[in-house]
């Protein structure tokens, strides 16, 4: 099938470009709100990748959990504590940046090395596989039952921790706080005098 292969190739290229560009935006954008929205775009692109790999359930779960829950919570947190602060210049900024660049480049080199030295099982033609839900469920409840249950215990721990943090009596009073929402000053439009 020529058509499906072409569609797959174009989608792969578009998704890759989108994910890479959005991820760069997350890191490089000076505005934290833009970074959070771009993070949502990265998650959506990854979901598209899963779709291309015939993992439709994983793709839908990715959208539901990462875009619909994690990213929305990140945005929530940013918008509720949206304080405009002037950041101080970091000491030895150039050295830190150099270290960061070195770490990133070496990580990338490691990944590239692994990628080039692995024998990938590539299927030459595109086939429509049946949905993976049933297989996924069987794996979860047979060989991977213990990790699955442990992950749920981890979530429970996080849940209890959040409740403890949110309970008022454990938080020391910090006196009066300015609870006003931040709004950029509006310029008044000059009214023509008559």
């Amino acid at each position, binding site marked *: 099938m*020529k*058509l499906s292969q072409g569609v797959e190739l174009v989608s792969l290229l578009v998704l890759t470009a989108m994910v890479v560009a959005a991820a760069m935006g997350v890191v490089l954008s000076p505005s934290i*709100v833009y970074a959070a*929205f771009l993070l*949502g775009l990265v998650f*959506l692109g990854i979901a598209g990748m899963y779709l291309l790999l015939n993992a*439709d*359930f994983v793709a*839908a*779960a990715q*959208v*539901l959990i990462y*875009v*619909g*829950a994690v*990213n*929305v919570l990140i*945005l*929530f947190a940013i*918008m*509720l504590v949206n304080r405009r602060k002037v950041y101080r210049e970091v000491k030895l900024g150039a050295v830190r940046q150099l270290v960061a660049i070195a770490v990133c480049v070496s990580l990338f080199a490691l990944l590239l090395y692994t990628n080039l030295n692995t024998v990938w099982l590539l299927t030459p033609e595109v086939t429509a596989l*049946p*949905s993976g*839900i049933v297989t996924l469920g069987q794996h979860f409840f047979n060989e991977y039952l213990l990790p699955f249950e442990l992950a749920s215990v981890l979530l429970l721990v996080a849940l209890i921790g959040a409740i403890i943090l949110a309970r008022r009596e454990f938080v020391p009073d910090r006196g009066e706080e300015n609870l006003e*929402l931040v*709004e*950029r*000053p*509006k*310029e008044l439009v000059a009214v023509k005098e008559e």
Partner: protein
Amino acid sequence: MTGIDLQRSFIDLFSGLGIDPEVARVMWMPLPMLAVVTIATVGALAATWLERKISAAAQQRIGPEYAGPFGLAIPAADVVKLLIKQTVVPANADPLLFVLGPVIVFISVFLSFLVIPFGENLVISNVATGIFLVIAISSIAPIGLLMSGYSSNNKYSLLGGLRAAAQSISYEIPLALAALAVAMMSNGLSTVEIVEQQADLGILSWNVWRQPIGFIIFIIAALAECERIPFDLPEAEEELVAGYQTEYSGVNFMLFYGASYANLFLSALLVAILYLGGWELPFPIDKVAELLSIPETNPIWQVVAAFLGATVILLKAFAFIFLAILLRWTVPRVRIDQLLDLGWKFLLPIGLANLLLTAALKLAFPGAFGG
């Protein structure tokens, strides 16, 4: 595969005319998408007309009357009016996010129509993740709401956007739990499978009798997801002017307005598919065909059956829309704390109990609960 198969007929027709079947397939692809987008738009427009007419009746008025017969041209007039209005972007707003917000909300609603079936083969894509995909896609909408609330540079907009996101996150969980109980009975997430599992005995085998608790949870959660009274906190006029839509005008406002009614239409179709037997008639239509000794492959019968099915699912959906509109004009709004209490402390435990009960009944009576 029984019933009408338009794609195969279309491809056969064009290969008969000497066109490559592959090319005919490509020519076919945009047609169902266009059809479904049209249906969604017309459904949303019809919902706005119904809103005006029913609200008028609830307040003993007549409502729109002069624009077309029974005021039927009023939705078109609305669209034209909003199209020719100026689109204002407020000073100091973030222009990019301000425009992008309503677009994201609109796309996420219309994308969900991808898996809504109007008949056994009258669906764009019968993907195996069906109902889960709808829930996943509709969870993108809060990002658009937060975006527009943030970028408007207005307190009311920001509060409205935050409320909208909190509300839709809270009510997505009971909604998903109710849908999960149905998926458990039909042994699959595909919307077509869910309807076919309700097909045996006509009205008696609809899920509403087997899932009465789930039905009520789903209706409440769907109303909350659509942000309609009694749950329209994000745009509560008395508190927040118009919530996240305060600063919007013209086409951008139309996107929000259209998306909210398309979302209502989508929720109504989901209620029809999950609990009211989808495109199935109240009596099993296959048995009627057998009784009249019409073969299933008869083309005229197939067209009639598909037409009846599509009509029936729309009737069921609009029955839910009627209920939602009637609720809007008769019930007061809840407070924000009541809203979150209802979602987290009432619907969530009831939804979990319903799931447990369904699992138990499925094990005990596999015949009746899709064992």
